[in-house]
């Protein structure tokens, strides 16, 4: 985060990077097989 802050001059830009990464994680998880009901 420090490096993003140095680049953009604010930690708030780092948070925007984290928000985007969080959305990427949600997208990755949406591609995973549902395991709850059935057995592997």
């Amino acid at each position, binding site marked *: *985060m*420090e*490096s993003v*802050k140095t680049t953009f001059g*604010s*930690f*708030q830009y*780092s*948070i*925007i990077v*984290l*928000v985007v*990464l*969080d*959305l*990427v*994680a*949600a997208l*990755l*998880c*949406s*591609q*995973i*097989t*549902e*395991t*709850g*009901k059935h*057995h*592997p």
Partner: protein
Amino acid sequence: MMLLLFQAGVAIGQPFVMNSVSKLAVTWFPRKESVLATGLGSLALFLGMMLSLSVTPFLTLSFGFEPMLMVYAAIAVIGAVFFLIVGRSKPKIAPEPDDEASEAFSSKAFRRGIRSKDIMLLSAAFFIGVGLFTALATWLEKVLEPFGISITDAGIIGGVFIVGGIIGSIVIPALSDKTGRRKPFLVGELLISAAALMIFVTGGSFMFLLAGALVLGFFLMPSLPIGLQVSAELVGSSMAGTAASVLCGYSLRSDLWSSSS
């Protein structure tokens, strides 16, 4: 040299604790209770983290650095001895009938497990999720500074974030068990936590940030037990610990990246 040796000892021990949570949950509990069991195990990790963060300064100032470490070493030894006495690796009767027929661990099964698309996707999501948590925990004071939040108030907001996570680690896994669904909870948690993260961009009053941190912790932190449970269910109970170790391996790299970069 001694410091390196004993730090290595602690580091070697950590994966055995971290990776056993989901393994124990799928071994001991039926499928309809396993996420809650994993959630309670993860909750203990968060509680321990919160307690040690608040108690360590007091212990260090009151007794000194070495006695503080001795107190934690004694607690760890007591915990380990207690677990050795009362802990059992598996129940006499498997909670799920097909667990008896679960694929036995082998290097071939291990390679197939860690190369599966689902485990790779989950590992990438863990890399991001744990990095996000570590980045917030490390830089929260600096992030809140532009909004005129003092170090003390930032500490309170950080504490509320953890409390939200503790509550979420009970409520959301229980809901996942009740509905028998994993993916909608995992995706939903990450989407809501992304929205809640925006409070650190927009800023606001102390109360607003406090409420936002509670919501963020509530939805972000339960993704750990649900993710661990999904990994265990993907590979089967015999390799649940191995799958958790793969995810935790990615988490560790993410920790290093987010706290240092």
